[in-house]
């Protein structure tokens, strides 16, 4: 996949490969992709067993940034963030 600008990505369908893969990776029922960077989607399958880091910087916004391999995806999902906060207690 070619490099996307944030604006172009937001204008595209939520169901892009990157979005689906990212959402699927964390079992999201809802939540839209609000940003993404570099990465060939063919890497996603190969990266299935790679370590993945979830980073919540400002919990009140409901954003979760997922980092796997060289890729980074941010999703806005307040429900997921709340679940993560509860699990981390």
């Amino acid at each position, binding site marked *: 996949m070619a490099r996307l600008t944030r604006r172009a990505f937001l204008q595209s369908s939520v169901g892009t490969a990157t979005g689906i893969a990212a959402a699927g990776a964390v079992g999201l029922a809802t939540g839209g992709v609000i940003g993404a960077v570099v990465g060939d989607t063919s890497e996603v399958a190969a990266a299935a067993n790679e370590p993945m*880091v979830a980073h919540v*910087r400002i919990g009140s916004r409901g954003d979760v940034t997922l*980092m796997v391999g060289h890729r980074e995806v941010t999703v806005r999902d307040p429900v997921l963030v709340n679940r993560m906060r509860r699990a981390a207690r």
Partner: protein
Amino acid sequence: MSSHREAPAISKDPVADNTDTYAFVSPDRPDTVTLIANYIPLEGPDGGPNFYSFGDDVLYSIYIDNDGDALPEITYQFRFKTKIRNPNTFLYNTGPIGDLNSPNWNVRQFYSVTRIDSTGRHELDDDLKCPPVNVGIRSTPDYEDLAKAAVHELSGGTRVFAGQRREGFYVDLGSIFDLGALRPFQDLHLIPLAAHPGVDATQHLSVHTIALQIPKTLLTSDGSNPSDPTNSTSVIGVWAAASRRKSRVRVGDDVDEAGPWVQVSRLGNPLVNEVIIPLGKKDLWNSVAPSTDSQFQPYFAHPELAGLLPVLYPSPPAFPNLKAYTKERVDIEAIFLTGIPASILPTAPTFTGTTLAEMIRLNMAVPPASSPSINGVLGGDVAGFPNGRRVFDDVATIEIRALAGATIPLVDGTFTPDAAAGAVSDFSAAQFSSGSPPGADRYIDNFPYLGVPESGFDVPS
């Protein structure tokens, strides 16, 4: 060396890199013990404009085992915080720094001290001042007084200091790591060169020191002031470490950290991870606690350097008896992993039991020596290394000689050490006779005992 850049991972993380750990009965306050943990290897005094400092993102720890189980009954933790007065200048200081509150000092560091023991977690102070580094004659004109002002009294008679000091460890780094050459003996090396005095590679360098002076009664398991060297409560095991948070995420020019502390460096006795632990295990060594050290026992039983010495000095053979010795090195295991029992060192035993754990063991009931020998126990001075470690002990020579077989007769009367085992060193006898190394100005006779760091203006000259 000692433990400067000794393992692949930590060599890339200097602010968390333990370089030396010291533990000794304070010569001027013999009812106390001084513990020193040094960090940041090979620190050049002129390292500006962002001079060396402790890591705000590192947890620095000193551990004390006082019952021989290789677990810390007492832990001191140190956390640092850097404060910048004026972020709109590149300068460390905007004029002379006359005292620790000087408005000219732009980049200051403060720290907290926490003691953890059987009674809980005790925050001893949370806003202690570090001194500045010794920038030079214009910026830090009276550095000695600045550093003295950064010695703080804590509750219960404990003293603390954290900041830059003179490097106390002396060694001929360049020669030793050039295929194990010792300049004074290099005419006998496998690749010979004319014999030459050793080079004190660390002579003008600095370190960052965390030093504590603690009443012995706060260190023993029963609160007593030890006076009987044969009483097991007189011996403590000491090691220091550095830890980082498990998770670190960069966000622009900011950093988020989370998760538990993960140990990235540890140091008890000098030179262990340096020359006894092999490359493939060095990072592991730094990540684990002494209580797990039985996994490393084979490297102490058959030290690689003991096998190399006869190869490196073959003609005329300098170490024929060492070469023929194939038994386990019980002497090395005693020095580093269990302590030395009273049957071997009756006036200063450091044995803490059969648990194999690499710690500096100090018998606190042994008084300071009135005429100390830099060769410690090998020099007939039982108040020195490996009964604890003082700032001036020549640990490189002591350990080279021990590995060369000088200490085998302590545990195996059938062995006769090679003559070279009692003579090898990275410096010549004439150098030691002249007092340099280590050099008189390298140390001071009171806390924190390591000398005033050289100034960046003067070094290198």
